[in-house]
């Protein structure tokens, strides 16, 4: 053995070791990019509650994920069959058909949701009102018969819109709902949130550690995001096409719900008539807000509140938000100086403004 070769051997080994480590790091990085070792993702879509439902769950066991997804879709169908105003055999339809006549026995879930809807009605001074059904039906927005209603008939419908005339009574033999004659309950402003909460509870019960539930734009996330850091949810730009967002919220274990007039409307005589009604006038709410996003652990609350605050407008909306705990919000307001995005204090650091034509300000009175 020559001296030269002996001297270079340790260096050779060192170099070889270095190259090996480097290659292994590269191999690992490349595998990560291919998605190996990352949690498996299963998602499903269906058409429920008058919209598109999309659920995505993450985990290691594909069979378990698929099973949980199936159960979720079935749960949504079951709840829709209780709560939908468009299904003749639903609890809500039974209540509406019996209005002013007799109290109707409903399922515990229908009762719970209606009670929560009535609580929010009280809390928002009627800006949110589940008895607005007659008004909603007269306008028919989202159906082929959408039209401006006859003023006399609309007046009648507004008179019937009064949450104080609807009551839920817990009796020994069940829970009963009583409404005033001609009243029509419509849970369209809160049901999606409630169903979202129920699905999230079911998925967690099934042992699913993380996922995203999207009920026609009502979103809830739970567990770890599939990307590094928190979940990123875009907020629909009120003046741009569907899917374009003006900002992003970075969140975990919350629901994010947005309400805006752009969601659903029809045009007549050059004017747009949208689907968020002011229960006091029976007309689409003349709000100074372009959209309202509520971030709350509870999706039922977020759903009702996003509708209510849109109807209340900026001033009243902000003061209600200040009274509420654990609720964050992003309000887009049309001001003379341009479009301003108001973000509540607790969310400020987790909101990223993307639209160059908007200005961000803290939501203070």
């Amino acid at each position: 053995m020559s001296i030269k070769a002996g001297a270079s051997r340790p260096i050779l080994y060192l170099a070889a070791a270095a190259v090996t480590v480097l290659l292994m790091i590269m191999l690992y990085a490349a595998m990560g990019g291919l998605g190996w070792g990352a949690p498996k993702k299963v998602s499903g879509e269906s058409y429920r509650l008058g919209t598109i439902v999309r659920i995505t769950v993450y985990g290691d066991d594909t069979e378990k994920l698929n099973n949980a997804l199936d159960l979720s879709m079935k749960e949504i169908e079951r709840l829709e069959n209780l709560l939908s105003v468009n299904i003749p055999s639903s609890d809500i339809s039974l209540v509406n058909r019996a209005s002013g006549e007799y109290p109707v026995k409903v399922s515990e879930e229908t009762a719970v949701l209606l009670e929560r809807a009535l609580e929010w009605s009280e809390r928002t001074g009627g800006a949110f009102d589940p008895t607005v059904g007659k008004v909603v039906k007269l306008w028919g927005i989202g159906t082929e018969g959408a039209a401006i209603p006859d003023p006399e008939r609309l007046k009648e419908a507004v008179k019937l819109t009064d949450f104080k005339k609807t009551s839920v009574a817990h009796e020994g033999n069940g829970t009963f709902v009583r409404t005033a004659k001609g009243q029509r309950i419509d849970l369209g402003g809160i049901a999606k949130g409630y169903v979202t909460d129920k699905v999230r509870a079911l998925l967690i019960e099934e042992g699913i550690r993380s996922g995203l539930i999207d009920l026609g734009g009502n979103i809830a996330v739970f567990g770890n995001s599939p990307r590094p850091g928190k979940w990123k949810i875009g907020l629909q730009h009120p003046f741009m096409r569907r899917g374009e967002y003006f900002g992003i919220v970075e969140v975990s274990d919350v629901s994010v719900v947005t309400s805006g007039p752009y969601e659903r409307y029809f045009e007549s005589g050059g004017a747009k008539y949208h689907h968020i009604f002011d229960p006091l006038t029976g007309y689409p709410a003349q709000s100074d807000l372009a959209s309202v996003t509520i971030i709350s652990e509870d999706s039922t609350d977020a759903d009702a509140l996003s509708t209510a605050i849109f109807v209340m407008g900026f001033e009243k909306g902000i003061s209600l938000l200040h009274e509420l705990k654990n609720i964050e919000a992003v309000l887009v307001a049309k001001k003379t100086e341009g479009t301003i995005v108001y973000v509540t204090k607790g969310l400020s650091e987790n909101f990223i403004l993307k639209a160059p034509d908007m200005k961000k300000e803290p939501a203070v009175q």
Partner: protein
Amino acid sequence: MGMKRGDRAMLRILIVILMASCVVWGIRFLTKAPDVLNAEIIQDGKLLRRVLLKKGDPAGEFAVEYKGGRNVLKTEDGKIAVIASDCPDKDCVKRGWLQRPGDSAVCLPNRLVIRISGKTEVDGVTW
């Protein structure tokens, strides 16, 4: 230069790792193709077909039917759009061209979703 047993073993390990790296990187390179987009046509929750969208592609059209409903889709130059629908709102047509990962058009009455797959900046959009 004469090789010892240890050297040869080390060389073998190195070659195996090198080859594994080449294979993995090769797969990555082949599947990446940055200027090709993948559009998923999903009907009633089921993947109907995938359409590859490449820059410079000539215009093409095809129809998707669902229980008497009909949407006409057009592809061109790396983009896809719904250009005709028999639904009342025509939301899907108003959506216009889809050309980035995450872009989607939905036709609720015909239970049709067209979505461009791929990595997006957000996990979802609330509306």
